[in-house]
């Protein structure tokens, strides 16, 4: 199984659809998109809806993407979709295409070789937006991507859109971005984390899912120099799975490090199976509770 980086999937000239069910999964992918854009020297614009711009700035910082300096120099802008893409007048597909076109011209005048935009499409589920205009907008965009300067990721919350609209969205976008999910169950979710690179496990974990834990961890060890294992939303771990994590850290060469973030109950079990004896393992107790 291969896990492409967000940058491997989308780049200049791409129009992609990001679908998600878990809020953290969306923020991870958006953070990776912003990080990669800033590194490439492109202008980056985030049009927010479900989360306000200040909230997004905090979430980016939590994922090691510090937005402050980039925002001050104008390379990064976080703004509500209602003030930008949707404008103040009637929301029409043509008007929205004009907004994007103006952004692209402005970025070029400011000297940026490219423009990355990501937009939360949740607005279209409200009466003021309208799914009809959304569909027209997504289809009219094609010309803007012709010269390869624009990269656009549209975010679709699978919980908010009906199946027909989601199917349309998947078709209207030449590319799709979604988090790699290793295990999905109401009581346990194991997925890849894109920023900071590693894996995230939420719910309750015991020996029955040990194989999938080993698979996710070994993939992370292969892809990530210093893997992050985010267990902040894990409420329970048994000794068998805690042992798998400690053993994985012990296999790392001296120059690499694994960081585990978890609740106290999980830290207790990790400690008892020998986390303290693994020189390359750092366990950080988070006080965030579910």
């Amino acid at each position, binding site marked *: 199984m291969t896990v492409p980086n967000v940058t491997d999937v989308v780049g200049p000239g791409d129009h992609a659809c990001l679908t998600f069910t878990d809020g953290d999964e969306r923020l991870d992918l958006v953070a990776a998109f912003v990080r990669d854009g800033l590194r490439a020297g492109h202008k980056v614009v985030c049009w927010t809806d479900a989360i306000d711009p200040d909230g997004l700035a905090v979430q980016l910082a939590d994922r090691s993407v510090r937005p402050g300096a980039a925002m001050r120099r104008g390379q990064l802008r976080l703004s509500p979709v209602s003030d930008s893409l949707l404008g103040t007048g009637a929301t029409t597909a043509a008007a929205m295409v004009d907004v994007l076109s103006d952004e692209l011209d402005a970025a070029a005048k400011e000297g940026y070789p490219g423009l990355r935009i990501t937009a939360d499409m949740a607005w279209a589920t409200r009466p003021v937006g309208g799914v009809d205009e959304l569909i027209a907008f997504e289809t009219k965009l094609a010309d803007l991507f012709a010269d390869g300067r624009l990269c656009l990721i549209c975010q679709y919350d699978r919980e908010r859109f009906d199946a027909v609209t989601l199917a349309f969205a998947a078709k209207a976008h030449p590319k799709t971005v979604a988090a790699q999910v290793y295990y999905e169950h109401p009581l346990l979710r194991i997925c890849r984390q894109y920023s900071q690179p590693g894996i995230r496990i939420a719910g309750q974990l015991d020996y029955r899912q040990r194989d999938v834990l080993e698979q996710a961890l070994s993939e992370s060890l292969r892809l990530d120099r210093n893997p992050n294992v985010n267990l902040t939303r894990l409420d*329970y771990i048994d000794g068998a799975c805690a042992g798998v994590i400690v053993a994985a850290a012990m296999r790392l060469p001296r120059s690499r490090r694994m960081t585990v973030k978890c609740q106290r109950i999980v830290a207790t079990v990790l*400690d008892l199976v020998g986390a303290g004896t693994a020189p390359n393992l750092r366990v950080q107790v988070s006080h965030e509770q579910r």
Partner: protein
Amino acid sequence: MSSGETAARPPQPRRAALSRPDSVDLDQAFDINSLHMLRRTVAAHADRLGANDDQLERLIIVAGELAINAIRHGGGRGRLFLWRHEDTLFCEVSDQGPGIKDPTAGTSLPNPISSDGRGLWICRNLTSELAISTGPDGRGTIVQATIPR
């Protein structure tokens, strides 16, 4: 908690007499399909019995390990009893498996690279006493954990 602390205090094996009271606060049968429910039920009862956060966490970990041991090595199913005496919680898990032959099981930290044998070590470190005995008819295992405040 630091790992240094746990390594410095290897718990001793014990085979104390068991005396489960006639009336307990929780008597719950379990198998592989009810592990999540068991942990939730234990947590809810301990909360009702006035356990503090630290005691509750130790109980959830210990009850989980003992139940998993019963499922994996004790015939696939078991029964958990929970009761309180003053501020101390008692958690007893019985199964119908072949029994634990080694009374010192779990008194040293297993090699982290090895895949098994951590359950009793974890339990011994989180309890003031862990009594392992054989069932009344010479079959199965009864493990009683004492979890003080």
